[in-house]
């Protein structure tokens, strides 16, 4: 690579279209994974809150799943579901559980008993209490979990590049740049995926400010049980 500039801006200029396509694919893969992951995690957390004895078991399984290397999981699934979007999404979804479930549970745990009693005293039905009192108060920690999940998932999408050209989002450029010993591509893929993760993180911070303006000052740092 001697004599080559680190970034060939002419290459970047000539590939703006494909780069934006990859950025879009990256976002697409991440949004699907976090959405499905969030829906399943919410269900798991609801079970864990009602059946408290199951919570350690849920955490243990989620931790064990998170422990399995992403590379190994992607490679394993190829044999079963081929080079398909299922193979790309299943690991991404599985890895969100350990980030989302503990934060959702902690969010609902953080609602003070006094507040629940007051809501009951005011004649709220169970549904109203959940929707108007418990959920809004749980939002800061739920969003903290979503921030962690979004950042982690955006990072992991790059690994799906090992599934070939059709996947990987910006990870495609990291792998291709490496194989071609072409730093420009690696830098484009790596820096844009980092930028996307940071942007998603800031996006969730803004979302939380909109959802819970009263809690703007205290941004929950999130629970990391891993």
């Amino acid at each position, binding site marked *: *690579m001697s004599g080559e500039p*680190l970034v060939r801006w002419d290459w970047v200029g000539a590939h703006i279209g494909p780069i934006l396509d990859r950025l879009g694919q990256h976002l697409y893969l991440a949004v699907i994974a976090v959405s499905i992951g969030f829906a399943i995690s919410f269900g798991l957390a609801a079970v864990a809150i009602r059946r408290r004895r199951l919570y350690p078991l849920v955490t243990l399984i989620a*931790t*064990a799943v998170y*422990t*399995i*290397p*992403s*590379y*190994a999981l992607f*490679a*394993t699934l*190829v*044999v079963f579901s081929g080079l398909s979007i299922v193979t790309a999404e299943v690991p991404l979804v599985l890895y969100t559980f350990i980030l989302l479930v503990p934060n959702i549970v902690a969010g609902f745990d953080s609602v003070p008993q006094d507040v629940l009693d007051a809501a009951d005293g005011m004649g709220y039905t169970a549904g109203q209490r959940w929707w108007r009192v418990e959920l809004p108060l749980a939002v800061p920690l739920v969003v903290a979990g979503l*921030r*962690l999940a979004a*950042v*982690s998932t*955006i*990072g*992991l999408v*790059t*690994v799906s*590049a*090992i599934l070939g050209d059709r996947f990987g989002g*910006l*990870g495609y450029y*990291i*792998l291709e*740049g*490496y194989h071609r010993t072409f*730093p420009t591509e*690696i*830098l484009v*893929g*790596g*820096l844009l*995926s*980092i930028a996307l*993760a*940071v942007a998603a*993180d800031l996006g969730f911070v803004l979302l939380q400010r909109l959802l819970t303006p009263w809690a703007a000052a205290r941004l929950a*740092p*999130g629970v*990391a*049980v*891993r």
Partner: protein
Amino acid sequence: MQIVAATIQWLADPAHWQGSNGIPLRLGEHVALSGLSLLLAALVAMPLGLWIGHTGRFSWLVVSSANAWRALPSFAVIGLLVPFTTLLDPNLGFILYPTLIAMIVLAGPPLLVNSYQGVAGVDRDLVEAARGMGMSERQILFDLEMPIALPVLATGLRSAAVQVIATATLGATFGFGGLGHYIVLGDANQDNGELFGGVVLVAALALGTLAMFVLLERRLASPGLAPRTAG
């Protein structure tokens, strides 16, 4: 079921347990790289986290930077480092440094955050009482705060170790050996036995490390703190 048979056959073949591509050597590479990066990360992050937790200075930095730090995906970090480290050293800069540095970066946040939270979470009344009894700041940190923070510190170490061992697998895509090497080769050669042999080995190592730390944490926890589980 063919896959299971092929995997068992591959793992049972004595030829795969010796030589320069043998399982003991690849396992050794994987463990050595993980251990070294964990050690280097711990040497920087843990004293820093303990100090910030004890003094309360720069605590905003830990809370705000830890999340941003996690935005650095290892796959991208390893790839990004290759062009730079190969300029420093064409050989080690290609096979070792990118993965090693990326793993130090990965291990940093859980070590820093848990060291900080462990010490910062110690009841301030206890610290005041210790000060009143004439304990020095050093004694407060080492004899009071650290023993109480031990479970949280251990959780940080476990989290970092497990993540590093799992993620070091990616190094195989970028010139580093380790157990991920079998997955790369198995994938390239369409050899399911080798591919799943690698998957089984690397998953076993990661889960084994997790189990080892969980057992260790149980033994380490002070009996006086037993009913309160930290994490």
